[in-house]
């Protein structure tokens, strides 16, 4: 039995809850967006985020308040994904990401559309579909950096890779994504293009 508390006096549980809401729950949208791109479907993304929050709340005493809660949560989310969801929701990587030769869309469009106006014609769903087709290592780099705006250092910490790896993955991921969107735009007739 716990002692009844005087109303207005914060208990340790209230403190814990309050700080968790303030520092962790505010990142729910970020966790959800990253989970969606990792799992590829809404039901698994829901479960992954819920599990992440549960694990985070249990381990909340290990989190140093005022430090990078978003990075801490995303690290938990990614581990949960790797351990429990990846085998079930995605096929293991069969692509050698280092062998992917990046294609420079800009060089091809220098004459026709140097300002990249064709991007504006591509709708959200098409962009998300193109991201989902990227190899997982590229997908997570793009989502953390370009969608969630995290620094190279934060991304490196979450993915447990050196900063140089983040840079090179981002470079190839962005170029590959551009090439996919370019092919789509050519197919839709938004641009002529000249890629063989």
């Amino acid at each position, binding site marked *: 039995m716990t002692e009844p508390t005087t109303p207005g006096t914060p208990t340790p549980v209230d403190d814990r*809850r309050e700080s*968790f809401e303030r520092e962790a*729950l505010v990142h*729910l*949208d970020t*966790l*959800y*967006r990253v989970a*969606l791109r990792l799992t590829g479907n*809404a039901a698994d993304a*829901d479960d992954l*985020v*819920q599990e992440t*929050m*549960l694990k985070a*709340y249990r381990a909340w005493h290990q989190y140093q308040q005022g430090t990078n809660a978003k990075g801490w949560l995303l690290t938990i989310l990614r581990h949960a994904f790797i351990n429990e969801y990846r085998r079930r929701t995605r096929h293991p990587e069969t692509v050698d990401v280092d062998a992917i030769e990046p294609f420079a869309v*800009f060089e091809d*469009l*220098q004459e026709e559309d*140097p*300002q*990249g106006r064709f*991007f*504006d014609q*591509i*709708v*959200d769903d098409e*962009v*998300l579909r193109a*991201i989902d087709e990227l190899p997982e290592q590229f997908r997570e780099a*793009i*989502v953390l*950096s*370009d*969608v969630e*705006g995290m*620094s*190279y250092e934060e991304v490196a910490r979450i993915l447990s890779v050196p900063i140089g790896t983040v*840079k090179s993955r*981002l*470079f190839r991921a*962005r170029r590959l*994504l*551009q090439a996919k969107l370019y092919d789509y735009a050519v197919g839709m007739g938004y641009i002529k293009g000249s890629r063989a």
Partner: protein
Amino acid sequence: MNCREAVEHLYEYLDKELTPQVEREVRQHLEDCQPCLEQFDFEDAFLKFLQARCRGRCAPPELKRRILHELFGE
């Protein structure tokens, strides 16, 4: 700084990950070099487009309710 070096730093420049010194050198180059400036602008437009297209999704309210219930029993 020449064109090759500037382009090598392209994404780090746009991501604001360069040291102030190198960033200044890249900016200097872009002031004097129209072709590089066009390429940087193109990539900048691409990154802004990406973020604009993907940031819209929010966690469903139902998920938030589920989590609050699970954590705090509400």
